[in-house]
């Protein structure tokens, strides 16, 4: 999105962000010991990774995908099937799920990058709906029930993932590794070319860059990382279901990224945590003026946050903080 130049919030020095990433890792490492449930943290981390993968495409490539749930869900189904039906160990199942999403990313990417902007959003949405119907009808996904009671298993034959704390740290390591990879990609020459394409595609073409190849690569990378999130989520919750391929999931990841700050490094993580917190609170039931709001209000609230973000809060939480910090420093 070229409207607001979110890239400005990325400092050019390396030290600052690396310190911030280290601080984030430290916070997550101690979080289970200050009374935050590992299950909540794992869910939030999976969505944070999903949102970071999505942000790579919109924030740095300017491509709004409205169908990213297909990658989350595909990896979840493939991973769950491999772990449950074939008895694969978790690390192999997660890798297979990620690879499946990457492959889907190549196929869909070749089609979608032919159009830009609004069309790109509509095409990704339509393709994701096609994938949804496929999973609805194909037998291995077990339709409405989903693939249930997926075994967590032993990671590398040594770590028992049935222990929630062990599982949590494995999720954390996966998240941090993917986060560092994204951080590295954004700052590589490849990331710079992506930004150039976002800002001015004809100019990037005239400079001799094979724009389609860069876009496709970014799309596949984003699909694979979204898949990694989906596969990990399937192992954590021992479930792969239609919820993860539905278009509402594609909308939710857009919201998390928009709320946290598109094109910022930490925005998607913040957005995912805020969103999962809201969802968790609402599921428990929130009573206001004697009326109890339950989980069925999540879509309505999601819609309101969308409207407010777009009208008044386009930089998102992290983007606004960054802008405020820039003003203070001056």
């Amino acid at each position, binding site marked *: *999105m*070229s*409207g*607001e130049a979110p890239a400005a919030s990325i400092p050019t020095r390396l030290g600052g962000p690396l310190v911030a990433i280290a601080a984030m890792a430290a916070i997550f490492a101690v979080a289970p010991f200050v009374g935050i449930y590992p299950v909540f943290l794992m869910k939030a981390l999976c969505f944070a990774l999903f949102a970071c993968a999505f942000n790579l495409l919109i924030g740095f490539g300017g491509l*709004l995908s*409205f169908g990213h749930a297909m990658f989350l869900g595909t990896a979840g189904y493939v991973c769950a099937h491999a772990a449950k039906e074939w008895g694969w160990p978790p690390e192999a199942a997660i890798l297979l799920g990620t690879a499946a999403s990457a492959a889907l990313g190549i196929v869909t990417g070749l*089609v979608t990058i*032919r*159009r830009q*902007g*609004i*069309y790109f*959003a*509509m*095409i990704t*949405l*339509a*393709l994701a*709906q*096609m994938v949804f*119907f*496929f999973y*609805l*009808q194909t037998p291995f996904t077990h339709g409405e029930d989903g693939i249930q009671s997926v075994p967590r298993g032993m990671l590398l034959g040594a770590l028992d993932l049935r222990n929630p704390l062990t599982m949590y740290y494995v999720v954390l390591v996966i998240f941090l590794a993917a986060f560092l990879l994204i951080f590295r990609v954004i700052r590589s020459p490849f990331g710079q070319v992506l930004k150039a394409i976002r800002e001015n595609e004809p100019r990037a073409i005239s400079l001799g860059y094979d724009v389609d190849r860069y876009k496709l690569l970014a799309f596949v990378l984003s699909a694979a990382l979204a898949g990694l999130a989906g596969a990990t989520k399937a192992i954590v919750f021992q479930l792969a279901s239609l919820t993860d391929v539905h*278009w509402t999931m594609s*909308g939710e990841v*857009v919201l998390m990224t*928009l709320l946290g700050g598109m094109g910022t490094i930490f925005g998607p993580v913040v957005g995912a945590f805020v969103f999962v917190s809201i969802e968790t609170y609402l599921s428990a039931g929130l009573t206001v003026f004697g009326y109890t709001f339950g989980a*069925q*209000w999540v*879509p*309505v609230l*999601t*819609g*309101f*946050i*969308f*409207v407010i*973000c*777009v*009208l008044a809060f*386009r930089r998102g939480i992290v983007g606004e903080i960054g802008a405020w910090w820039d003003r203070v420093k001056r």
Partner: protein
Amino acid sequence: MTIFGIPTQALFGQLLIGLINGAFYAMLSLGLAVIFGLLNIINFTHGAQYMLGAFCAYFLLQFAGMGYWWALLIAPLVVGAVGIVIERTMLARLYKLDHLYGLLLTFGLALILQGLFTNYYGSSGLPYQIPPELSGGINLGFMFLPKYRAWVIIASLAVCLGTWFVIERTKLGSYLRAATENPALVQSFGIDVPRMVTLTYGFGVGLAAFAGVMAAPIYTVNPQMGANIIIVVFAVVVIGGMGSILGAVITGFGLGVIEGLTKVFYPEASNTVIFVIMVIVLVLRPAGLFGRER
């Protein structure tokens, strides 16, 4: 009697269902195309506004005792007025920004509307009777044609052709087309473009509500009725391209028929056939069948 091993009764039955679905695809994609032409916004709320039209008809019957024909007149006006309020208070603030923000805003509005109606009315759907004038059917010899379904096809064709006539053949339409090409220039000729934009959005939304009223007796009044159809309509728009009004109408009806025939010959693919066609069109003709690159 059979054709290609399929009983003609089933074949023509699905063909008719395809034409009905096509009528709704055509009306909805027409509204989307008109709105997109002038506002450069993909109206994600279109499905929710279609649903609002159906609910408006239901409320008119429940609380005011007004039947189908009144609803057909009043619902588009009411929902169109709601659309005008949305355009004035929210969409108008976004025209200077990236067009994707319009998509995100209207997506949020769609979630709010669908969520509210689902919470209050459930997702099972409320019945709405076919008006007595159109109940029953005609036996054509090779098939039984319910009168209401014939009416939907004829009425939607009339609405689509009427819209085409207004936009392509009248003075007002020529202003509209000119403003699509170059709003600043049209405004400098003394035409109130912002008001035209508002009314265009209201008209497009009213068209969705009109389709919603027509759909109420066929599909029941359901809060989620717009959510599923809007994604298919997006694919229809991508296939047809946004360049031409007639293109949207032809693509809408054509894809409805193809979808209906798929139900006869290969039912497993009936949900996905439109998306598959979209992929093929994108590979062969990225701008769409009737579109032009812009």
